[in-house]
């Protein structure tokens, strides 16, 4: 082929670009602002036509149910609605929610996983969503005692702009889950302090708890992310910020306590208490190590005593996974993971007419009533479960209609600790022990001053700063960098005006939220 002339001719380029521009402007004009699902005919009155509601939410089930599911139909009947639910699978929810927020393509009931989502925060300030405060008092179940705290803590500038999705305060979070059978085999007590915990790990390594004569045990299946709580133990606070006596917040990322925490982990790493691939393992690989029954400790929420405990049992029938209640640091201060009593929030965009907003709240009111709430998780009595000795026993129909974990239960969680500590098929003794442990955990109050705080500077700069520090920590722990490099990095961050700006904004946000 003969090569063509170099210059395609300026006019040709212009022609092409004009042609493109003209047509694309036409198309994108109908693309921008307006958009959105048609909000249907305004909310129906009670007893009238069923109101259609478009809901988008997470679903952890492998198979999503649709409107042919009997339980779904029952819910529609009882709430006089026509539900149009878009399930998001957890693997992609974050990206998808972000894209939807950015495109302005919002369903009538929009789910966002975190209040801290920067886009959400901007949109809340712009008034994209309904302020629900004036309506809430009309819905008794939404004002249930158990839900008071979640409504209070999710207020934005004193207003309820979101419907939080309940999740218990205790029982979730990454915290050590220990092989009770190994403890017993070595005659060890359940560790209560960090030092005891360390000694247990060491014993797991040296004393052959599985009794096969080989030193093949991995004391603690962990990656750097799974050890974040160690820093909280040392800093005696939840989250990334600590409340100082003068009511200001300080970032724990640069604190001396965090340095000590890092050195604690480093010592454990040097003693071979973590897997060799500690630095590069992804969560699934950590879980896989746990599952191979060669690990003595893993970091998990309490329901994994059975969710993961059961597959470990398949490999080693003696295995028994037990969550720890708390750990104490050298100052004698106890720590256990806890959070605000909700996970994820629902929002109603302003384009939804007021009558329908009320209808939606009515729907959630039913979902949080005792009757509706139990139905969403357990199904219908007599059909999906029978009550024996005060306990609900699932019938075969439960599996067919997919009650239990996931699906409707994911839309509105069961208002109970069971959400975090129980699992389908969990044996009684494991469940009872979990109840005891969670009760013990509840006696441990760890302050969480930065919960639900939002700062623009934080969103813009903090992720990069914290990533730098986390990377550096791993390098020091695995001996790729000396401690001096870490000290130097912390010094620069302390002097970074961006960090000062973040700290100032966070303090201001704290004082506005909690001290007014």
């Amino acid at each position: 082929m003969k090569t063509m002339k170099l210059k395609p001719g300026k006019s040709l380029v212009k022609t092409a670009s004009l042609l493109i521009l003209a047509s694309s402007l036409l198309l994108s004009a109908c693309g921008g602002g307006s958009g959105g699902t048609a909000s249907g005919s305004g909310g129906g009155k009670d007893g009238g036509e069923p109101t259609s509601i478009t809901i988008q939410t997470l679903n952890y089930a492998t198979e999503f149910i649709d409107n042919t599911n009997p339980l779904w139909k029952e819910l529609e009947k009882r709430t006089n609605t026509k539900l149009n639910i878009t399930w998001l699978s957890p693997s992609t929810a974050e990206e998808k929610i972000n894209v939807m927020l950015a495109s302005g393509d919002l369903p009538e009931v929009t789910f966002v996983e975190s209040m801290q989502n920067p886009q959400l925060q901007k949109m809340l300030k712009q008034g994209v969503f309904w302020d629900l405060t004036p309506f809430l008092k009309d819905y008794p179940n939404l004002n249930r005692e158990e839900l008071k705290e979640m409504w209070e803590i999710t207020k934005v500038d004193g207003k309820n702009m979101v419907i939080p999705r309940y999740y218990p305060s205790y029982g979730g979070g990454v915290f050590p889950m220990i092989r009770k059978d190994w403890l017993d085999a070595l005659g060890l007590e359940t560790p209560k302090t960090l030092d005891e915990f360390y000694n247990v790990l060491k014993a797991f390594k040296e004393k052959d708890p599985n009794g096969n004569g080989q030193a093949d045990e991995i004391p603690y299946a962990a990656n750097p992310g799974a050890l974040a709580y160690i820093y909280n133990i040392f800093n005696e606070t939840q989250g990334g910020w600590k409340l100082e006596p003068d009511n200001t917040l300080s970032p724990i990322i640069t604190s001396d306590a965090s340095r000590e925490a890092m050195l604690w982990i480093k010592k454990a790493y040097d003693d071979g208490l973590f897997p060799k691939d500690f630095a590069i393992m992804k969560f699934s690989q950590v879980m896989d190590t746990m599952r191979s029954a060669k690990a003595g400790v893993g970091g998990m929420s309490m329901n994994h005593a059975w969710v993961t405990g059961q597959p470990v049992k398949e490999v080693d029938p003696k295995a028994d996974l037990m969550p720890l209640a708390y750990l104490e640091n050298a100052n004698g201060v106890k720590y256990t993971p806890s959070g605000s009593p909700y996970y994820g929030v629902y929002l109603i965009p302003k384009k939804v007419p007021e009558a329908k907003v009320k209808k939606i709240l009515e729907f959630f009111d039913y979902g949080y009533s005792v009757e509706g709430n139990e139905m969403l998780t357990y199904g219908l009595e007599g059909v999906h479960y029978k009550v024996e000795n005060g306990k609900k026993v699932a019938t075969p129909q439960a599996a067919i209609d997919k009650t239990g974990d996931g699906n409707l239960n994911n839309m509105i969680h069961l208002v109970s600790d069971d959400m975090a500590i129980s699992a389908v098929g969990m044996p009684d003794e494991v469940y009872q022990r979990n109840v005891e442990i969670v009760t013990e955990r509840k006696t441990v109050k760890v302050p969480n001053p930065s919960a639900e705080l939002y700062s623009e500077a934080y969103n813009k700069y903090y992720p990069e700063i914290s990533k730098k520090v986390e990377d550096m920590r791993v390098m020091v722990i695995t001996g790729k960098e000396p401690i001096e490099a870490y000290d130097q990095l912390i010094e620069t961050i302390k002097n970074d005006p961006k960090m000062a700006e973040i700290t100032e904004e966070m303090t201001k946000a704290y004082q506005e939220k909690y001290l007014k």
Partner: protein
Amino acid sequence: MKELETVQIEPKNRGASRKASTSGKSKTKWGRLWADVARDKYLYVLALPGLIFFIIFKYVPITNLVIAFQEYSPYFGVLGSPWVGFEHFIRFFSNNDFWMLLRNTLAISFLSLIFFFPAPIILALMLNEVRSSLYKRTIQSLVYIPHFLSWVLIYGLTYLMFSQSEGLVNKWFMSMNWETVDILSNPNYFWAMLTAQSIWKEVGWGTIIFLAAIAGVDPQLYEAAVMDGAGRFRRMWHVTLPAMRNVIMILLILRLGTILDTGFEQIYLMMNAPVTQVAEVFDTYVYRVGIRQGEFSYSTAIGLFKSIVGVIMVVTANRLARRYGQESLY
């Protein structure tokens, strides 16, 4: 004036019936143009679906690139968001990490250019020299397979082969009482490992196009070369390689245009804390900041920067290629 005329072309073309009526007026260059267009109306029809595709799915979204100069907010939309000029670009270039990102991106790209790009050419040449067609076909089919595997799986396989606790290689070292080697979290090996992975995955698939080019060589050329007493290597050099030259040039130019693109998924999966300093590239940064932190304007600005560099690279390479009498892109 001219632009106006062209904009109308397509609609007129579709209604092919009114051919002559509008054009009869003059025999000037407009008239000729119209006659040409009318003559080729069916060609335009053939091209039309493709044109519509490019406009709707490429150019319409591209107009949204203007948000790189805005503080985009979905509430106001593309048309209503406030303009901020070059703020996002300034923030990006003044970021301390910009040079790190640029260095890593270029390093990974150039390694791929030097080692990954010629690999399928060499393999194709080697395959071409195999006499037994059964053997050749077997090897060919084997090396195609990795192309079909996703990066997630390749990450898993790499871990199975090279990790310190699970890895086959280290298991073997241990059984020989040697020290285990840290391969996956070692900044010194990271770039090499990425390149090796890409080669493993795509080298076989890459040979397809070159083998085809070789197949197009006139056998008489080889015979003539043999007559001249050329050995294997000289035949390869003087007959086979020149036949592949056009394909190689075109691929090379296109590759240069994407010099700032690095396989996002691959790097994202292989990245871990100890190697971050050598692993973070534009693509991973955009993902982290743009999608996860929701800074769409900022990440769009970075994307735009990448595109502009790409255009410059392609145009320059194309010009150079033409100057040296090689095949060029357009």
